[in-house]
């Protein structure tokens, strides 16, 4: 293995500084005691964190996002696991088309999906409905889950399944007792990626949320376009902290590089 030279390491340090700069600044400004977006120089204060929790809008939006992401990720797993089994295990007419349909939300800009959902929901009278918002999120997160489920299935040793089959287990029992436990890392990794994607989604949601179903990113976007005060930094710092926690959990359980980079 060759080492990186000093120029390479300097370049690397600059890139890391560039990547971390906005996140670090947010976390510092969130503790300012002032009324403006300034770095805390003399004292640290928690007043803006208190302000967040005294702001019912943000608390409601946070609750909405949490429910939305939890339900959408669970439904997408319930769809992606059987669909993944069908695509991985069987050859049937329309298989490629089906695979393409399930992965299509990845190549359709979220902006276009948002506009399309808005039109559909307006026509069927579903604007502002939480259930339809959940389904729209299911559409955008299912491709991620499906890809991980397919990767888990393709790396699977089939002999354990065949052994169970030979020993007289029914197909559902084979799935429940043999296949599912073996692809569990793929499923739970998929659920978490789906949860995070749904929780962070802005561009599509901004078209289909109503004041009652507004999600945290949409609320934050609206707030940031209207006024900028340190409370926005406090909310952002809380989100960074939550994300860091989720990342640590993901990394402990599966290895984050495996999920994000898709290595085996």
């Amino acid at each position, binding site marked *: 293995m060759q080492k990186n030279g000093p120029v390479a390491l300097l370049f690397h340090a600059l890139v*890391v500084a560039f990547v971390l700069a906005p996140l670090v600044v947010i976390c510092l400004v969130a503790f300012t005691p002032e009324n403006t977006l300034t770095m805390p120089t003399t004292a640290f204060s928690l007043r803006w964190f208190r302000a967040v929790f005294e702001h019912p809008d943000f608390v409601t939006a946070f609750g909405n996002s949490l429910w939305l992401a939890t339900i959408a990720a669970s439904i997408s797993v319930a769809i992606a696991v*059987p669909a993944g089994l069908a695509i991985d295990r069987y050859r049937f007419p329309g298989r490629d088309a089906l695979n393409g349909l399930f992965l299509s939300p990845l190549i359709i800009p979220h902006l*276009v999906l948002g506009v399309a959902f808005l039109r559909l929901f307006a026509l069927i009278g579903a604007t502002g409905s939480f259930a339809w918002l959940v389904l729209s999120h299911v559409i955008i997160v299912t491709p991620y889950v499906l890809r991980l489920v397919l990767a888990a299935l393709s790396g699977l040793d089939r002999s354990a399944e065949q052994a169970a089959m030979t020993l007289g287990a029914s197909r559902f029992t084979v799935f429940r007792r043999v296949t599912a436990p073996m692809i569990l890392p793929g499923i739970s990794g998929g659920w978490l990626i789906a949860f995070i994607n749904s929780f962070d989604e802005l561009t599509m949601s901004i078209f289909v949320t109503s004041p009652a179903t507004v999600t945290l990113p949409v609320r934050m976007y609206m707030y940031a376009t209207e006024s900028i005060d340190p409370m926005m930094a406090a909310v952002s710092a809380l989100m960074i902290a939550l*994300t860091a926690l989720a990342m640590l959990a993901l990394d402990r359980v599966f290895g984050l590089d495996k999920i994000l980079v898709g290595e085996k």
Partner: protein
Amino acid sequence: MSRSVATPLMLASPGAVLFAGLVIVPLVLTLILSFLAYDHATGIKDSWTLAHYVHVLSDSYYLGIFWRTLRLAALTTLICALIGAPEAYILSRMRSPWRSVFLLVIIGPLLVSVVVRAFGWSMLLGSTGLVNAALHAIGLGPVRLLYTETAIVIALVHVMLPFMVIPVWTALQKLDPMIEAAAWTLGASRFSALRRVVMPQVSMGLLSGSLIVFGLSASAFAIPGLLGGRRLKMAATLVYDEYMHELNWPLGAAIAILVLVANLVIMLAYNRAVEARARRMLG
């Protein structure tokens, strides 16, 4: 392995129904909407028209926004390639604990909401922000950065960088480092080993990274929305304004359809290029 068709269809049908109903149907409805006439007093009408497409493709206001969108997305892609490819190469040459630590540092921000990252940049680039403070310290006057195209590109590069690093990194993983060492042993200079051994391997990763970065930048919403201000619009913020402020849904739908078509055309062209390359490499 069962040969029956009923089982896979049963397994996939709940998802298939949902996706047909919530991907194909809304897109077709939006396509139809983009051809419906609109009147500012009475709203959407039942008659068909091409007026929205003609209007959008001939008015210099809209053309200017499309041009800016393409220009900034291309610039973002270029800068991401120039930063992301060397960074992925440096990461791949790091030793064991540092390698995964810094890989996490580079791609971890992907999981932080884009609104948060855009807000961070608006603080850094503001007139009293850190960048201007640093410029002031070395004796340069305040520079107006926020609400400029520069701010949009800086933040887009920040958000898109992981999408460039990941595919290049994946491509580099397939390259045995011993091959590069072999090239040196055989008398190749560092530069020509990089150019003739590493680059061909990386170029596929660069190509797919560029595709993702360009597509996502061209339809980015939060970054131009928060860092471009009200005046510097890109395609996505334009569509949002047509829908939410002008309430001209058919015109907004026409722009959205154009964004979708442009996206698909570029993807297809890229796929063709990748396939042609793969065929050439196989001989």
